[in-house]
């Protein structure tokens, strides 16, 4: 999320409907949790967007120009907060199966072992 201390999530759009039943949780989220969330993330631009007749979703825009959309229909306000925090905690890279859990540019300090090495 934060690469070298720089937060990668630039903008979060909270899209909801003021009438629909699937937006009930997100309406509660906007009232109760969103102000605190905004305060704890001053680096982040949070926008609420009213789109009537649509299911609610969270749209995240990252510094590497990636975009991630999470559908939050019929979710409770705590679950919406969890999704918002997850979006904040991500670097915005593409989700792929990791070939290795150790990424390095310089794989060997003492030299790569070959069959010619004699100790």
């Amino acid at each position, binding site marked *: 999320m*934060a690469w070298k201390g720089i937060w990668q999530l630039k903008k979060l759009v909270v899209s909801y409907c003021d009438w629909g039943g699937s937006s009930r949780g997100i309406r509660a989220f906007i009232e109760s949790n969103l102000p605190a969330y905004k305060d704890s993330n001053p680096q982040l631009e949070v926008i609420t967007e009213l789109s009537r007749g649509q299911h609610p979703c969270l749209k995240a825009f990252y510094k590497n120009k990636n975009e991630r959309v999470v559908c939050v229909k019929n979710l409770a306000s705590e679950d919406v907060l969890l999704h918002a925090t*997850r979006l904040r905690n*991500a670097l915005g890279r593409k*989700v792929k*199966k990791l070939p290795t*859990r150790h990424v390095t540019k310089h794989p060997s*300090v003492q030299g790569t072992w070959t069959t010619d090495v004699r100790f």
Partner: protein
Amino acid sequence: MAQRRWLQTVTRHALPLLSSKPTTSLKPLPHLPAPISLKSILSPKPLQQFLYTDPTLFHARSFSSSSRDDSENEEDDGEEGSEEEEDYDSDSNEAEVDDVTVSDMKREYSAEEKEAEAATIGYKVTGPLLPSDRVLKHREPVFAVVQVGSHQFKVSNGDCIYVERLKFCEVNDKLILNKVLMLGTSTQTIIGRPILPDAAVHAVVEEHALDAKVIIFKKKRRKNYRRTKGHRQELTRLRIADIQGIEKPQPKVDPKQKMAAVKQQEKVAVAA
């Protein structure tokens, strides 16, 4: 084998004592040897007694260190004896452990509990990364083998590693990984037995994210049974900032600068 049987008897005798007084009975033990040794100085007879009681005392201590209650001692001695003992007391402790995991599901942790849990995994949170901190440096030819949870990684600074999600840290926190098993430079290697207590690896939390989806598919032949379940593992990405505990070799002088210095010297020699 004989030693094993003897240990078994010792543990059998020690267990009721331990179960009656779970942790408080263990702490006074390190103070015990002092009065006994005084007695032994005063008169020769109790010396034998002291010698006789001494091994049991010490074993009771190592036994206490292997119990799950105190995690700090567990790191310090990973000797063979403690492992064997753990096999024996695991049966009796199983019921307790189950209780704990059930109540753990949604439990609030105090600061000390968080620290203790983090210590068993092998990290310590030292606070958020401030913009003024310049923790990420140029590459140094140093590596460390470090254990986080049950995974071991060979890292040097600037690397990034994915570990199972670390519970009590936020993104942008600085961590100290203290279970270092090995340190090395191009010329020197230090091996811990099993860990190096003075060494530390500094890291920064970069990301809490979900891994790619894994599909669990179960099928039974001819039974019309199919189950599909998806799973996404929570991971934490760490950036290694620094490795401490080993003498780092001096950074190599830039070859161009060296050449310039040599040329200057030649010029001086010609002039003279």
